[in-house]
């Protein structure tokens, strides 16, 4: 016990921390000399800004970078998210006793209408992803939060995991299908084959809102399955 107390902070850890502080000082100095804060350092993005609205039709420029100029990266990102959902599923294998907890009155009343309200906000953020700050990833997480409120009250009811996983797979497939249609129609993967429309209106920016809706539903189902794994494994101590 005493030994454990003495070794609470090991020497190598403290040494490493000192080195890290020095690293921080150097990093700050380098940053301030080579890329001064608040100065124009745009290189690659200057072209994106120049092409921006006219080429993709998206009002939100970040969206046009994420889903048009760098859409392939986003496909990779979605894949990584899928991989982490899989890893969580592997580590927290099913078959455990579900989380049983006394129903909280506040939760019970709120759960009747909260999921719909939260879901509505999530859907709004997903559908306006090409216009305002937000998009598929953020909106998807918000939708997942709404479903989580439902899950907290689901008790021992069986979840339809097959539905969740097939929904996720379907959305991933749709993303790739849209990409391949672009390949056939325009000659490059994820080519924007729909009309750009008027910048700033809901139906604009070609395939970008479509892609964000797919991403939104995919992210939502992934997060719901991750959260579900965590709640259904907390058992043991509860009994």
């Amino acid at each position: 016990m005493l030994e454990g107390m003495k070794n609470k902070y090991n020497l190598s850890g403290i040494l490493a921390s000192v080195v890290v502080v020095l690293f921080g000082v150097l990093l700050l100095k380098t940053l301030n000399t080579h890329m001064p804060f608040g100065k124009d350092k745009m290189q690659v993005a200057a072209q994106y800004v120049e092409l921006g609205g006219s080429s993709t039709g998206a009002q939100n420029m970040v969206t046009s970078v994420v889903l048009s100029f760098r859409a392939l990266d986003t496909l990779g990102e979605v894949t990584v998210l899928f991989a982490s959902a899989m890893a969580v599923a592997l580590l927290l294998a099913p078959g455990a006793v579900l989380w049983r907890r006394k129903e909280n009155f506040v939760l019970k009343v709120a759960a009747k209408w909260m999921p719909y309200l939260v879901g509505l906000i999530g859907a709004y953020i997903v559908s306006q992803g090409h216009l305002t700050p937000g998009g598929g990833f953020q909106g998807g997480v918000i939708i997942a939060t709404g479903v989580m409120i439902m899950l907290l009250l689901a008790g021992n009811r069986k979840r339809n995991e097959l539905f969740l996983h097939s929904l996720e797979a379907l959305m991933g497939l749709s993303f790739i299908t849209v990409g391949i249609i672009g390949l056939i129609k325009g000659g490059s993967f994820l080519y924007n084959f729909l009309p750009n429309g008027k910048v700033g209106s809901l139906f604009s920016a070609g395939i970008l809102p479509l892609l964000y809706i797919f991403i939104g539903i995919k992210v939502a189902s992934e997060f719901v399955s991750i959260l579900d794994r965590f709640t259904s494994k907390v058992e043991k101590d509860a009994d």
Partner: protein
Amino acid sequence: MQINFYTLSVFLIVLGLIGIFLSRDFIKTLIGIAVLESGVNLLLISIGYIDGRLAPILFNDELKKSAVGMVVDPLPQALVLTAIVIGVGLLAFGLAMAVWMNNRFGTTDVSELKELKG
């Protein structure tokens, strides 16, 4: 007065790294990783910041015509969007590992796991 956000982000990075080095509890290590992540994200965003320019959203007609020289760098923001999502995935995986560790060994203290010592 202008705030230099580099200082804050480097502070967060250093804090996160120290947290990772000094913690033996796996969950605290994960908290360190989360702090480190926010530091890196803030650093990327502040590198893209340009004095007196607007958010990269074409919200009026003047911007819609041409946004050159009027908006901040959208690329770091898009990258950070990716980084946040990956960070959440990493955190979920790490916490799942912590749950597994607790079920298997009854502790999340890494220094108590003698089985893996080589």
